[in-house]
């Protein structure tokens, strides 16, 4: 038990225990802002160009990231191999050469910012690589009583010591627009009589791009961690990567998830764990005492300077799975679409302005405005439409030429991309 680390199995507290007495959101105002360098540096054992992001902390009032530019970034392997990084985008530094973190080697991050301050990390060794045994999906009811599916993972540490893991996922799902139509509106004349002496005109044309089937990819944002200490034989089973409610449209058709298992060092594990604890919904009755989280990077000039972030070296394995909703819930209807597609819209082609008696047909076109604003997609042609550009013929019962649906109902590009990812397997 000597090697027993302080980070003993506390994962059950990070189970989303949301008890909120009388909790209201409020707009946080910055009080006593302190500037600080943020270092997001993750080195893995994958052979690739690694990326390091440098930015600055910012007040709550500021939404956009402040990039830290023109810094010199280097990773030193075993105190003698230098891997230089260069800035490819503002604040994004990529290694000049491809390399990987090797077992039994140690790595140190060195940064010199444009104002001449130097920072260095502790030397970090690469943890042992541990493969994912199994990644699978199961129907489950979560602890809030919601029905859905859980993506679960089994893994086994081959060493005698405990292993610490952090998980990231990348989920890709197929989207099918429920009211897709091969035809699109074709705005032939978007100017009324008042402007060009001609009436508004909207026709139809075949769609020019794929709008029925799309794919969207999203990345995990929450911190998901677990450790095998306290588990029999260091064997991890049924670790929950993600729970998706049965009625979430993302699993309507085909869904794929790529899970990356980062074997972490205990220090990194505990850093992420505290970061997560300080930023999770908490129990109203007992609040974790927050404070500044000391990472593994320090300033060479001033030991008191606060540096946010961590230099993490991990050994990564990944696994991807696919599943179809129909296979999991063969008898159930599909989950509702992202938006409600029931309402049928029927915008008028022409709506006169008040004093256009002398110029019938002058005014505006709600239909063309909606098309041009990207709000609607063609659904069907109105058989009862009677063309009218005379104010005298206009009445309560005047109809529009076409039936339309909200754009997302007829064009999946609103929710994803029509380009099928390379890895996608049907």
């Amino acid at each position, binding site marked *: 038990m000597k090697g027993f680390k302080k980070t003993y199995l506390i994962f059950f507290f990070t189970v989303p225990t949301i008890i909120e007495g009388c909790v209201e959101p409020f707009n946080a105002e910055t009080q006593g802002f302190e500037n600080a360098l943020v270092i*997001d540096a993750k080195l893995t054992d994958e052979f690739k160009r690694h990326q390091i992001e440098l930015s600055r902390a910012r007040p709550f009032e500021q939404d956009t990231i402040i990039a830290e530019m023109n810094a010199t970034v280097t990773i030193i392997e075993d105190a003698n191999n230098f891997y230089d990084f260069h800035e490819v985008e503002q604040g994004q530094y990529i290694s000049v050469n491809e390399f990987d973190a090797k077992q039994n080697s140690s790595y140190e991050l060195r940064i010199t910012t444009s104002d001449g301050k130097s920072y260095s990390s502790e030397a970090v060794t690469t943890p042992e690589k541990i493969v994912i045994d199994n990644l699978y999906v199961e129907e489950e009811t979560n602890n809030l009583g919601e029905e859905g599916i859980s993506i679960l993972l089994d893994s086994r540490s081959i060493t005698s010591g405990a292993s610490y893991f952090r998980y990231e996922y990348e989920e890709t799902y197929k989207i099918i627009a429920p009211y897709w139509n091969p035809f699109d509106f074709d705005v032939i004349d978007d100017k009324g009589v008042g402007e060009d002496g001609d009436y508004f005109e909207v026709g139809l044309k075949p769609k020019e791009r794929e709008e029925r089937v799309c794919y969207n990819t999203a990345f995990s944002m929450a911190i998901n961690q677990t450790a095998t200490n306290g588990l029999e034989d260091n064997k991890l089973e049924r670790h929950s990567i993600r729970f998706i409610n049965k009625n979430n449209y993302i699993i309507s058709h085909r869904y794929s998830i790529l899970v990356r298992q980062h074997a972490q060092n205990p220090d990194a594990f505990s850093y992420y764990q505290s970061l997560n604890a300080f930023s999770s919904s908490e129990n109203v009755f007992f609040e974790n005492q927050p404070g500044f989280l000391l990472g593994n990077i320090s300033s060479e000039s001033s030991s008191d300077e606060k540096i946010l972030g961590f230099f993490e070296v991990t050994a990564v394995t990944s696994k991807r799975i696919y599943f179809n909703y129909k296979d999991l819930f063969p008898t159930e209807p599909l989950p509702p679409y992202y938006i409600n597609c029931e309402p049928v819209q029927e915008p008028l082609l022409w709506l006169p302005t008040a004093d256009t008696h002398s110029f019938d047909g002058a005014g505006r076109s709600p239909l063309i405005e909606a098309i041009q604003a990207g709000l609607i997609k063609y659904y069907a042609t109105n058989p009862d439409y009677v063309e009218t550009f005379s104010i005298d013929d206009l009445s309560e019962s005047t109809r529009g030429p076409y039936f339309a649906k909200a754009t997302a109902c007829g064009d999946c590009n609103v929710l994803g991309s029509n380009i099928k990812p390379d890895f996608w397997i049907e």
Partner: protein
Amino acid sequence: MRNTIFVFLLLFVNNFLLAQESPPKISLTYTDFTIKDVFKSIEDSTDYTFYYVDEWLGDKKVSGSYQDADLNEILGDLFESTILNFYVLDNEKVVLTQNNIIYDELPTGFFVKSNQEQIQVTEELEDNGSQNPVFVSDERLPRQRNVETVRIGKETLEGQKRRYILSGYVRNAKTGRPIPDLSLIIRNRKVGTVTDENGFYEISVPVGENLFETKALGIESQQKRVLIYNDGQLDFTLNESIEQLDEVVVEADKTKNVEEEITGSTTIESEETKDIPMVLGERNILSVATQLPGITNAGEGASGINVRGGKTDQNLFLLDEGVVYNPTHFFGIFQALNPFATKGVDIYKGNVPAEYGGRLSSVFDITTIDGNTEKFSGEASIGPVTGNLMLEIPIVKDKSSLVIGGRGAYSDWILRSLDEESLSNSSASFYDVVANYTHKINENNQIKATGYYSDDSFSITSDSLFGYNNRMLSVNWNHKFNEKNSGALAVSNSKYAFDIGFDGQANNDFLLGYSVEETEAKLKFKYVMNDTHTFDYGVAAKLYNVNPGFIRPTGSESIISPFEVPEDRALEGAIYLSDNITLGDKVGLSAGIRYSYYTALGPSTQRVYTDGQPRNQATLIGSSEFDDNETVETYGGPEFRVSGRYSFTPDFSLKAGFNSMYQYIHTLSNTTTVSPIDTWKLSDSNIRPQRSNQFSLGLFKNFKDDLYELSVEGYYKTAEDVLDFKTGAQLLLNENIEQEVLQGEGQAYGVEFLLRKNSGKLNGWLGYTYSRSLIKFASDFTEERINGGEFFPSNYDKPHDVSLVANYKFTTRYSASLNFSYQTGRPVTYPIGQYNFNNSEYVFYSNRNEFRIPDYYRLDIGINIEGNHRIKKFAHSFWNISVYNVLGRANPYSVFFVSEGGEVKAFKSSIFSIPIPSITYNFKF
């Protein structure tokens, strides 16, 4: 008026002067005679004639044998154990007197009464044992009707004193229970005393006639003319008065606040808290305590009390001498004490009597009631949260009685009453039971045994169940050796435990638990040496067994491997001596010393770290093993408890005190307020005990015959080796806990004002406190430093604190009460900015507790309706209707920041943000 005395006396003197001739010798033998028969025998064989009242003699049987004895010798033996005196007149008439002695010469200086100086000389002589006859004159005191006259003691010619000791018990005529805190006043002497918890009093009374009057809340006043001839005993049996329903909220002994030597002590009677509106109508003496200056908590829903800037683990809660680790239910919102079975609490926040030790900030000495020994009775209540029943069952009439109390929450709906959707999956319930048995073996021996158990369980998500419980058993034996010496033996055992059961979807179900158990034996003695010195001394020993945590799998599927942090054991001992010194009416001094000694015991593995380095995995250089009962580490030292009083006038005094303490057991908590899963950790080779010193100074003044009490107290307190933790510390199941612990300094100071009115139609108190509580964790190493090693405010540093508790009695049946509190918002650690990391936004924190949440204020109101007072009625009922937080103020309790969906969201929480009405029905039978 003096003239009548002279006449009365001279009558005798004339005759006595003739009475000095040699008396005849008598030979006499008698067995099992009444005194009257003995007189007859003497009358038959001599010329003596006895003059007496038959009733004086009684039926007592006597035996004796005399040969040529003097009459004086025979009668002296005969009357030895009675209050009779005799005088032989003219060698043949034997005059018996009750109490009085018949003088045959005048006391020295009898005829120089006109000379003031001479009189003073005389009185001094009297102190040295000269004759000091007791004369009673009808004119001396106004005769009052229905005042019974009692004669105490037998006057003797030898060893006469100016004052005698009168003692006795005061009991309730109806219940037979002792009446504590009853004032006994000698009206014509302007002195008085107060009964102790056993209804016992002892007072030094001038010889002669004394008009005693008893005064206590809810007890009918009684007057007695007491003629004092010698030391003696006088018991009072008093009736309850209609005024029992007086709404006095907090009652200290009438002049206790001015007269007591120690500073910073308060008494709260449970019964008196019944009118103070409390959340959901639950009586709560601990919440009432927080309305008093110097006692606060971090906020609603924060278990734990902070006393004079001390941490929540620095309070010793004793229930009939046994420790209760967590005397609250449901995150501190309710007290875990049965209000009917609880008599009250004595709170020591300044000078702590030397008898107590082991916690730095305060002692809450809670006692349960003594059961009714005469008739079966009880009390019950039905409130929105709990049902509550307490029964008093006499076992042996006038000797022993059993009290049983039980209390439980009906259901889980408290959580739902918090009006929060996310709590719909939550549940919470609790109960507590208490029982005690008191047995009065005889006048000198009394035994009280108490058992207590409380249990809480709550679940916040459907897959986890938290539970905690307290258990306490104690036996107290009070023994009176003689008039001057008494002692008590207290043996107790306490246990606090919590567990978390997890039963989720995955195969990692487990049960995690913790427990601390202690067993204590305490022997204490009191020696009343004289009017000047009263000594308290004793010895105590306590054994701790802590199970710092275990986890085991539940269900056959679970892949959790069982693990247990090895048990910690320790022995804490103490020896103490204190002397209460009264130097005249003006000066009082209480000087105490306690020497406490602590030994951490094996079996144990203690980790060793590089000296002068922060303690972490990297500086861990090894460990040392200790065998069973081997000494791991010892700590200890003297603790001084000194305080003094100077009375400018009888109702105005100045007090000062110095108090030092040691604490060997600490809570481990990484939350900003107390949580039920905080664990207690014993000091060991890596964790030192906490120590504190407190200086206090106060002015105490009573106005208008003690109707108003005003006090101003200031204190300055320092603490060493108080515990805190590194940011993000993991404390549960951590074997190397010392790697997370920081020990630093504490500093607290404040001024407390309290104005209290104890009786009348309007009563209550108004308190204001200005106080600060600061802590400091300095180190050469960044990881062991908090806020740059400078002093910073603790989580419960609330400089301004105002509380008002008022009760107005419209009639004997209707009263209204009001409770207001205002406090500066507590310090919080507020983020100083945000940043992006790992694909999400996060906030970051800098210094701890640099900001404050908005100020706290709350108003509660209540209406109390007594049932009618028909004597024959089966039960006396009492309705309490109250509204907690009438203003509906959503007092912020905490602010927190959540990273959700990659974005930071800010939230503020409050516990009771809406007015909470409740109605409680109580009845007594």
